[in-house]
């Protein structure tokens, strides 16, 4: 099952919403820690939501490489491919 990037991005954008308390505008360069101000607990809940949505695992080793929204979308597309 392959999914195009735009569709994946839309699904992730919908998942971010409840965690995006300050209503920051989401673009590929949006950073989770610096722009969205996610703390470690938020990261855990957010990652779990994405893992459940796409039925994938994003290990902590992989998470360490993901700093912004664009990188996350790319990683999910790759893991789902």
């Amino acid at each position, binding site marked *: 099952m392959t999914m195009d990037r735009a569709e994946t991005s839309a699904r992730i954008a919908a998942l971010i919403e409840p965690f995006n308390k300050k209503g920051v505008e989401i673009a590929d360069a949006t950073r989770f820690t610096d722009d969205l101000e996610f*703390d*470690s*607990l938020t990261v*855990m809940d957010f990652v*779990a939501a994405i*893992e*459940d949505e796409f*039925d*994938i*695992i994003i*290990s*902590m*080793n*992989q998470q360490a490489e993901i700093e912004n929204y664009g990188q996350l979308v790319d990683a999910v597309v790759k893991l789902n491919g």
Partner: protein
Amino acid sequence: MTDMLSENETQAHTDLFSKFDPLIEMRQGLLSTGVTDPFGLVMEKVISPTVALCNGRETILLGTYNYMGMTFDPDVIAAGKQALDDFGAGTTGSRVLNGTYAGHKAVEEALCDFYGMKHAMVFSTGYQANLGIISTIAGKGDYIVLDIDSHASIWDGCKMGDAEVVPFKHNDIEAMEKRLRRIPEGAGKLVVLEGVYSMLGDIAPLKEMIAVAKKYGAMVLVDEAHSMGFIGPNGRGVAEDQGCLDDVDFVIGTFSKSVGTVGGFCVSNHSKFEIMRLVCRPYVFTASLPPSVVATAATSVRKLMHAADKRAHLWENSKVLHKGLTDAGFQLGTEEPQSAIIAVIMPDLERGAMMWEALLHEGLYVNLARPPATPANMTLLRCSLCAEHSAEQVQQIIGMFTRAGKTAGILG
């Protein structure tokens, strides 16, 4: 090499300590309020497992991990003194070279007897036991599935190894199962759990969790540091209490809590377990425990096998304190007492530190715990009970908490 700096030039200096500035500022902010440094307590004299002299004041100890009060057990002390005389102050060597004495083998035998398991391996600390076993058995391409509230030594063991690390929400069986189900077929899997989680003092539903882990073909490691000696009919821990110890592949434990000295261990029935002694770097590349320490540990472990009365008294203490603090109006980490740890939840770090100091003035020492050690950014006053706390001391403690709670404005 034309871009090399000439001899007279130097690059701008970056202070490697600047990353600690936020913590330094936060600490200064807290101490500037005049509160005593909660992380700088010195015990001038230790009178018994439950009483020490702090700042010249006799203080009840309610923040040690001396659950079974073995630190001053006469048999334990005698064994340590004898070993000092017979074997000297230290081994000056690794377990695999010149650092294995008769006492090291004796304490490993005591652990095999205590747990009813075939193999035991003693490390210099409990931290090293987790660090060593986890980083060694889970390698590249393997998956470690662990509870998000795991102890620092477990996280550091994950970080030191090459496995993929996959955490799940605390004690959430469904979240754990989902992650196990998604691991690629054929990959090695290690599930890491704790019997008692030391910050809130809550226990894990090990029976259900281990059954799920086994269904997905995972090996299971359980850290029973805070349950050994106390929980379970023979003091083997939460897995024994829930009747699933036979399904645990590796039990990690420590001598620095109920056993009353220092050191760590792993016990296992795995047929190839002994190879760990050659491949586990935190075991190989450090000096072994001093002879006096292993002698005290062996004596203590053997005595803990027959400590049912002490276990019963400690449960009683835990129940009475939990009820007393609940009735006084404090918010606790668990609705029911589940272990010898009772965590009192503070509204914030500042009032937590004030309350901690008020208790110290009352003559009571508890642990102040704060993020990142605590879950959900909580500030906690952690009380850990001892089998040697008398019923009178527990009542005294409840009175001290109630008075200090009013002084610090925690109670209305």
